[in-house]
């Protein structure tokens, strides 16, 4: 992170406290100074410019902001950035390399598991967490695992099909070792 110049604020230093936070995001270690009240979702979106993580409801109901924190799905709108210090974070941008697709991404496209796309990153991350702990889920297990993520477009049936599709592909590829980050 170099820049040719850094503007020094002309305003007097404010009394807003600042905390230093180091996280690994999609494999890259990043250190930032944040206000203690900054939400992880906003650090990811505005700080790291990873806008695939969406904020939908601010109350941890819709799940559009779901990311993996040390391999576990969390709703990043209800996690403070400072709470993530020292953690590994995976966002939708980290699911696969730039020219590749994760089987879940393929599955969502092939099974028409998305329409407006706004809930999709959260659905993908929640699904990834499910397949990590349960590589061969039943339809009911998929529905239960995704019950913290709202979708207004699809009616869920195709999302469920997409996750089952991805699970099958991962198992066929011997990908049951699907690992966290």
């Amino acid at each position, binding site marked *: 992170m170099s820049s040719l110049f850094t503007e020094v604020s002309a305003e007097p230093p404010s009394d807003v406290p600042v905390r230093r936070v180091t996280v690994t995001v999609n494999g890259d270690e990043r250190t930032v100074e944040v206000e203690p009240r900054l939400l992880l979702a906003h650090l990811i979106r505005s700080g790291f410019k*990873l*806008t695939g993580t969406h904020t939908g409801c601010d109350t941890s109901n*819709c799940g559009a902001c779901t990311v993996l924190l040390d391999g576990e799905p969390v709703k990043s709108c209800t996690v403070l950035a400072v709470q993530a210090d020292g953690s590994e974070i995976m966002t*939708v941008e980290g699911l696969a390399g730039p020219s590749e697709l994760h089987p879940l991404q393929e599955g969502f496209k092939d099974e028409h598991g998305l329409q*407006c*796309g*706004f809930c999709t990153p959260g659905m993908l991350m929640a699904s990834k967490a499910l397949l990590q702990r349960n590589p061969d889920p039943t339809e009911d297990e998929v529905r239960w695992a*995704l019950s913290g993520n709202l979708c207004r477009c699809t009616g869920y049936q195709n999302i469920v099909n997409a996750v089952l599709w991805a699970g099958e592909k991962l198992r066929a590829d011997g990908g049951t070792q699907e690992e966290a980050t």
Partner: protein
Amino acid sequence: MTLDEIKIGGLGASRRRVEDDRFIRGKGNYVDDIVLPDMLHMEILRSPVAHARIKSIDVSKAWEIPGVRLVLTGEMMAARNLAWMPTLSYDTQAVLATDKVRFQGQEVACVIADDPYIAKDGCAAIVVEYELLPAIVNPEQALGSDAPTIRDDKQNQLDNVIFDWEVGDKSGTDAAFDQADLVSKIEMHYPRSHPSPIETCGSIADFDRATSKLTVYMTSQAPHIIRAAVAMVAELPEHMIRIVSPDIGGGFGNKVPVYPGYVASILASILLERPVKWIEDKSGNLISTGFGRDVYLKGELALRNDGKILGVRMNTTSDHGAFFSDAQPSKFKIGLMHSAFACYDIPTAHLTARGVYTNKAPGGVAYRCSFRVTEAMYFQERMVQAAADDLGMDQAAFRRMNFVRDDDFPHRTAFGFLTDSGQYAKCLDVGLEAIGYEDFLVEQAEAKKQGRLLGIGISTMTEPLGAGNSKEYDILGIKMFDSAQLRVHMSGKAILRTGAKSQGQGHETTWAQIVAHELGIPAEDVVVEEGDTDTAPFGMGTYASRSTPVAGAAVAMVSRKIRAKARKLAAHLLEASEEDIEWELGRFYLRGDHDRGVTIQECAMAAYSNMPDGMEPGLENTSYYDPPNLTWPFACYITTVEIDPSTGVWDVLRVVAVDDCGVRINPMIVEGQIMGGLTEAYAMANMQFITFDEEGNCIGGNYMDYLLPTAWETPGFELHEVVTPCPHHPIGAKGIGECATVGGPAAFVNAVMDALKGHDVRNIDMPLLADRVHEAIVDRTDVSGIPPIKVG
């Protein structure tokens, strides 16, 4: 060799969606993803109370917060003649309150700051002193003799009535009722619901003083209407306004109106000469932006003993909130409510409608709906079921007997619409066969003996999609046509732009399929762009399932214009006269010599490199399409349920949907729309509603109080189809996006009511929450309306 239309992604191909490639990677471009240099952030301070006079607003503490750049109040808006704005229904709406607040959540002030956290701090520092007034939370209160006048800002408004409107034949209908063997009556309420896309509303206004150009990135389903509205409200010249709708995270009608936040962000950008971003939070979205429904019905059917419906009488009272801002064709005050009973052959009908102001958020938007058809079809199908019960007739047989017959088209409905096609009885039969109707009735009777409550609900309906034709349908005088512009490059690849705007419907995929069908250019060679008023041709946008009926038709028509020119180029290349040129998909050839031909791509190259003398170069055109009529899809939804009599909880056993939306462009996408629509139907029947306590506090202002179905409770769906092509649409397609949301709720409610047959229960109003169903079972009584919730 003839092209395989499915292989090139033409009509009927379940082509995988183009837009998915960015969405699955987290590379969508929603409004909140856009960051402009030097951008500021705006937050809105909202009224905590439903009805109050504003005594004072003290913003001084907000100004003291470092990083606050501007505080806007109603007074400042008024100084610029911007305190009020026109609505899409010829009313006015406060941008920022000056005199009174009229609903909880109304916009009172805005703070613009370096980041959204500081802007929120600024809002928290504003002190507003309110003098409380009685809150009016339902039409009954609004029409009471001692009710305060909510809209005392309007001269000549002395009560809370917005309109009294009627349609149909009163005397003819009265006569039909006089001759009836039986009159079936039912009253019900369609509760207030919020479309609630997961993405809220938002805008980034960017005024450039140097060029005087205003660019607004915003969540709008209808960017061209917004441009016209901004020109009107802000008194800016239209050519200096550019509205850009980027990717939209769901709309469902919520993102059609003009909201105060958009207007305030524009003024802030003009004053500060910096980009200003406003992203609404979820509560702001749920409590202040366009709700749907909230209509009370008194319905009556005049019946002959053999089951023939002789006449329909409907009386509606609708609660529009504090400002009449329904987004609907201006001529029809209660939307297309009078499309009710369009699928039934009924001699005469009469509808009276009254709209009232209350201290609730404004709206009455077409929530996945063509302007009140959702209420119309729900009322219709509940009335039909009640009538069948009153007659002691089988509900399927009663419907079949009253359907408009296949050979009766075109058919003028009792309310004056012209339906043009359909195979209603066939759809019903497909549905009954799929659900195993006769077997279920046996199973139901057996279960009843064991004290189990099984029910089957049917909902059949045709609805008017694709406003309009311009003679009848306009919004604020602007005719409801739509448009497409197609530019074919020299390589035969193309770019298509339309006046519609996808919010998940998949236009980037399906429009290219129409071009592929008309021109034989593979769909993957056509890029589709929408939402930028500087580049897209003028159109009325995407809502009310009008994209395929109107903009989709324009895509076909512009493709045909391109083909007509390409034919001249082909004649030139083949050194033949145009009359001797034949067309097959993707290729012109010489009549009688199939091998001598040129492809559409070769014609495209010739348009830039080898055109005949006198021909204008290039291969590009625009079509504005004014449909001759609405399209009339038909649907039959059948659900089965089981109620647990000890709790009132009802489980959905099966859902069968038979949709006839004419020719399907992309069957995969059509089925996706139907499943999404069924889910919203299930939601409204089961859980999704917004209510208010007696002080006007909104109950349902967040996702903990406003329940939306998750993957866990949403049932699975079984989809079937019948295809009756639309006779006037260029490719025979009809609208589909909203059908299941419109027709679906009655299927669920009818199923529950069917299960309660013999319990002396005629109606339970939606949502059929377990406690309401339980109350009906125990008390053997109807459960009506949504009473105000008591405070304390």
